[in-house]
C-alpha cells in the first residue's frame, strides 16, 4: 500500500464549503491547530452554486422583521418537526453572522440608504435575503476563503476521507487519500467537524455536483453516530429541463422573488389553484396583489409562487402529470412578463438575475428578458443529516461535530430558501467553536494501526478486481440514481420503497464487485467506486426513513398516506447502525418547546 503520510491537528474539518470554512475559521480563532480537508480545490464547493441569498432578519428593508418572525417562518416551513432550539439559535444569530461577512469583505447589494439589501423568498414573511445579484454563494465562499487563508488554517485540497478512526467511543482521526497521487493519509485529531454537504448524486435529476455523495452522513453512520430526518429530500421546484444535458441545473427562487410567475400550457397561473390552509392568510388573492408585494407594498401579501418549495414542486408535478406541462416536460417560469409593469425590465432582470440570464442564454438559447423558461423539480438538498446537539453541533459520538447540509434538525420537513446559507455560517461557527473547546479539554487518542491498514485495503479492493472483466462503477451509480428517482422521489408509496430497498441490496452486491482500470493517480473511476459506497448507505437511509414515516409532511408525500398524522407531527426518525451491522430506524419523540417559543409559534405560526 506504500507510504501513508501522517498529519496531526487539534481539530480536523472535513469539507470546505460555507459551513466547513466557517467552522475552521472559528476553531483557529480559538487558538487550536486546524486542518481543513476538501474533496475539490478550495472555493469550488457546492456553496458556490447557491444563488438567491442568505436569510437573516436584519430588518433593513422591512422594519417589522425580527428573529421571532424568522423563527416562526422556519418552523412553519419545516412543519414543526424542526429542532426548535436550532431554529431559534439560527434566527437569533444570522444577522450578526451576515454583518460579520461584510466586515470580512463581502459586498452585498445595497438599499438606497446604503445598507445591506434584502429580497423576497419563498416562505419568508418579509424581504429577508441578503444577496449579491444571483451569485450570493460565490460571494460567501470567496469571503470565507479569502479570510480563512490568513488564519493559519492548513488546507488539504483534493483529499477525500474514507473512514473515521475511533479510540473506544470517541473519534480520533481519519484515513483519507489524495486525488493527485492516490496516496493514503492519516489525520490525527482530537475533534472532527463534518461539513460534507448533501446527497444529491443519489438521484438522476439533481442540482448537485459529483461531490454530493453523502460522505459525511456515511462516515458518521459507520462511526456509530445517529442520523435524523433522512426521508426529507428537498426537490427544488425550478431546475432546468431543456436541453437534456443541463437537466437539473438550478434556476434560483430569486426569479420568483423578483416577480417571476409559474404558468402551465394553458397560460394559467396554477399556483393560485392550491394554497395550503396554513399559508392562506399570508398569500395574495390576486396577481395584482402579488405584484404589489414584489414592489414592496407592505399591505400586500406574497404571490403563491413564493409558497414553500415542497408545495410548489408538488403543484408543478401535478400540472405535468395532468397533461398541462410545457413541451419538454416542465412548466413555464416567466420573468419576462414584468415588462408590462416596468419600462426598464430588461436591464432590471439582467442586474438582479445576471447568472440566470447568462445560463439560459448560453446553455439553452433562451433570452429570459424576453422569453419564458421551462422548469421542473430537481433534487437539491437533504433536510435530514447527522443528529447533533443544538447549541454545540456535537454528534452522538464524542469528538464528532457536524454542520451545514450534512447536519440535521434545523429544517424539519422542509427548508426555506435562504436558510441554508445562514445555517452554514451560524451553525458552522458554533461547530468550530465547540470542537475547539472539546479539543482543548481532551488528550490525543490512539489510532489502531490495524484499522488503518484495513481501511486502506478496503479502499483498494476495486483495483484487485481490475477493469477488463469486472463492471465499472459508473454503471452501478447510474442504476442507483434511476432507482432512487423512480422509487423514492417526490411522490412515494410503500410498495415502491420496498422495491427500492431490494434494488439497493442488489446494487450493493454489484458495487462490491466493481473493478477499476488504471492506477491510483487521479483516477475518477476509483473515486466513483469509493463514493458509491456512501451513496448506497444514504440511499438506504432515505428509503428506510421514508418507509417508516407513514404520513405526508413537508417534502415527503406518500400517495398511500396522503394526510398528516398528528403522531408523526411530534416525532423524528433516527437511523443508526445496529450491533449486527444492519440499519435500524427508531421513531423518537420531539420534546415540547419552552413556553416563550410556543407563544411565538401560536402568535405567528
Amino acid at each position, binding site marked *: 500500500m506504500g507510504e501513508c503520510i501522517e498529519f496531526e491537528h487539534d481539530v480536523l474539518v472535513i469539507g470546505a464549503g460555507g459551513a466547513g470554512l466557517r467552522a475552521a475559521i472559528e476553531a483557529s480563532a480559538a487558538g487550536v491547530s486546524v486542518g481543513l480537508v476538501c474533496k475539490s480545490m478550495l472555493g469550488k464547493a457546492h456553496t458556490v*452554486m447557491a444563488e438567491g441569498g442568505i436569510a437573516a432578519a436584519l430588518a433593513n428593508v422591512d422594519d417589522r422583521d425580527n428573529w421571532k418572525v424568522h423563527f416562526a417562518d422556519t418552523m412553519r416551513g419545516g412543519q414543526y418537526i424542526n429542532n426548535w432550539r436550532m431554529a431559534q439559535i439560527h434566527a437569533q444569530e444570522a444577522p450578526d453572522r451576515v454583518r460579520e461577512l461584510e466586515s470580512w469583505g463581502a459586498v452585498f447589494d445595497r438599499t438606497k440608504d446604503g445598507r445591506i439589501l434584502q429580497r423576497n423568498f419563498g416562505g419568508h414573511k418579509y424581504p429577508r435575503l441578503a444577496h449579491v445579484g444571483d451569485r450570493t454563494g460565490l460571494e460567501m465562499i470567496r469571503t470565507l476563503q479569502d479570510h480563512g*487563508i490568513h488564519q493559519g488554517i492548513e488546507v488539504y485540497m483534493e483529499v477525500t476521507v474514507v473512514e473515521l478512526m475511533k479510540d473506544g467511543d470517541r473519534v480520533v482521526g481519519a484515513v483519507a487519500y489524495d486525488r493527485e497521487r492516490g496516496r493514503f493519509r492519516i489525520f490525527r485529531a482530537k475533534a472532527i467537524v463534518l461539513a460534507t454537504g448533501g446527497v444529491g448524486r443519489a438521484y438522476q435529476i439533481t442540482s448537485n455536483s459529483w461531490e454530493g455523495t453523502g460522505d459525511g452522513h456515511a462516515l458518521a453512520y459507520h462511526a456509530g453516530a445517529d442520523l435524523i430526518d433522512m426521508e426529507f429530500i428537498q426537490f427544488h421546484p425550478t431546475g432546468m429541463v431543456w*436541453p437534456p444535458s443541463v437537466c437539473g441545473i438550478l434556476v434560483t427562487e430569486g426569479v420568483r422573488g423578483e416577480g417571476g410567475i409559474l404558468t402551465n400550457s394553458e397560460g394559467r397561473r396554477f399556483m393560485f389553484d392550491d394554497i395550503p390552509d396554513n399559508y392562506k392568510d399570508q398569500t395574495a388573492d390576486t396577481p395584482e396583489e402579488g405584484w404589489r408585494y414584489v414592489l414592496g407594498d407592505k399591505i400586500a401579501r406574497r404571490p403563491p409562487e413564493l409558497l414553500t418549495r415542497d408545495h410548489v414542486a408538488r403543484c408543478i408535478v401535478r400540472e405535468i402529470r395532468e397533461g398541462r406541462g410545457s413541451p419538454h416536460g416542465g412548466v413555464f417560469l416567466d420573468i419576462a412578463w414584468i415588462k408590462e409593469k416596468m419600462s426598464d425590465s430588461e436591464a432590471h432582470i439582467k442586474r438582479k438575475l445576471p447568472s440566470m440570464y447568462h445560463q439560459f442564454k*448560453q446553455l439553452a438559447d433562451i433570452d429570459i428578458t424576453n422569453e419564458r423558461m421551462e422548469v421542473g423539480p430537481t433534487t437539491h438538498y437533504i433536510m435530514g443529516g447527522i443528529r447533533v446537539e443544538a447549541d454545540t453541533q456535537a454528534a452522538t459520538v464524542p469528538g464528532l461535530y457536524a454542520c451545514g447540509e450534512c447536519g440535521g434538525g434545523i429544517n424539519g420537513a422542509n427548508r426555506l430558501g435562504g436558510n441554508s446559507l445562514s445555517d452554514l455560517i451560524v451553525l458552522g461557527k458554533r461547530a468550530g467553536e465547540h470542537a475547539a473547546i472539546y479539543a482543548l479539554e481532551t488528550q490525543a487518542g490512539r489510532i489502531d494501526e490495524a484499522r488503518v491498514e484495513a481501511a486502506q485495503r478496503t479502499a483498494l479492493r476495486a483495483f484487485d478486481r481490475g477493469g477488463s472483466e469486472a463492471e465499472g462503477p*459508473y454503471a452501478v451509480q447510474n442504476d442507483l440514481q434511476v432507482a432512487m428517482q423512480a422509487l423514492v422521489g417526490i411522490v412515494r408509496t410503500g410498495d415502491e420503497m420496498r422495491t427500492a430497498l431490494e434494488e439497493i441490496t442488489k446494487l450493493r452486491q454489484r458495487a462490491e464487485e466493481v473493478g477499476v482500470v*488504471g492506477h491510483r*493517480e487521479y483516477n475518477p473511476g476509483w473515486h466513483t467506486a469509493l463514493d458509491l459506497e456512501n451513496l448506497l448507505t444514504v440511499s438506504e437511509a432515505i428509503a428506510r426513513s421514508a418507509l417508516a414515516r407513514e404520513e405526508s409532511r413537508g417534502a415527503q408525500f406518500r400517495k398511500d398516506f396522503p394526510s398528516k398524522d398528528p403522531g408523526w407531527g411530534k416525532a423524528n426518525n433516527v437511523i443508526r447502525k445496529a450491533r449486527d451491522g444492519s440499519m435500524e430506524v427508531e421513531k423518537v419523540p420531539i420534546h415540547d418547546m419552552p413556553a416563550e417559543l410556543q407563544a411565538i409559534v401560536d402568535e405567528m405560526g
Partner: protein
Amino acid sequence: MSSATFRIWRGNVEGGKFHDFSTEVSEGMVVLDAVRRIQAEKANDLACRWNCKAGKCGSCSAEVNGMPRLMCMCRMSDLPLDRPITVEPIKAFPIIKDLTTDISWNYVAKKKIRKFKPRAPDHDDGTWNMVQDDVDRVQEFRKCIECFLCQNVCHVLREHDLHDDFIGPRLFVYSAALEMHPLDTEDRLEDLKKAQGIGYCNITKCCTKVCPEDITITDNAIIPLKERVVDRFYDPLAMFLRRFRRKKPDKGVGENTK
C-alpha cells in the same frame, strides 16, 4: 443524433499524447457532457475536474480546439463536428494527469496579497453604509470564479514562466477588488509594483478576451492599478510635491473614495 470525435490529451508530467474517442452528440450538449460520457463509458480513469456544470465554479477549464474555455459552457453546436474536437489541459501550470493541472501556485500567490482591512465601522452596531454606485465596480471583480483561464493565456506566465515575479490577471483582479473596496484601508501599491510585478503586463488584453464572466480585466482592474502605481512612484510632480508634504503619500491622484 449525430456523432463526434474527441481528440483528448492523455498523459502525465512525463509526457502524453492525443487519444481519439467517438461519442454521440445530443441536443444542447456541452463539451463537458461528452468528456464525462467518455469517462463513464470508455475511459473510467480519464482525469478531469468539474463541479457545478453551470459556469459558476470555474473547475473545468481546458483548451477546446486550442481555445481556453470552461468545458461546461462550451456548446457542441458551436463547434465544427466534421473534424475531431481537441481537448487538452491548460498550459500555464504543470500537468498532473490528462486534463488536470497543478493550479496550487494560484493559491500560494493569493495568500501573499495583503488581506482586506476595513475602516472603523460607521455605526455602533459594527455596520457601514455603502451605496450601490460605489460597490458596482468591486462587484464586477468579485464575479470572478477563479477558473484561471486568464492566468493560462497571460504570456508572462504561459510563455515567460515568470511565476515567481508576477501574480497574473486573476490576482490583479483580486487586488483591484480589495484596493477599490469602499471600506478598505490597506495599501498594496508597493507590493503590486515590486513583488507582484504589475509592470510586466503590457496590456495585450488576452485575459479579458477569455474571461467567461466577462470581467473587463485589463481596462477596469489592471490599468487603474497600473495608474495608481505610476502616480505613486513615477509622477515627477507628485514626487516633488511629496517632499514638501509631511503626510504619508496618498493612494493615488483622484482616488479619495476610501
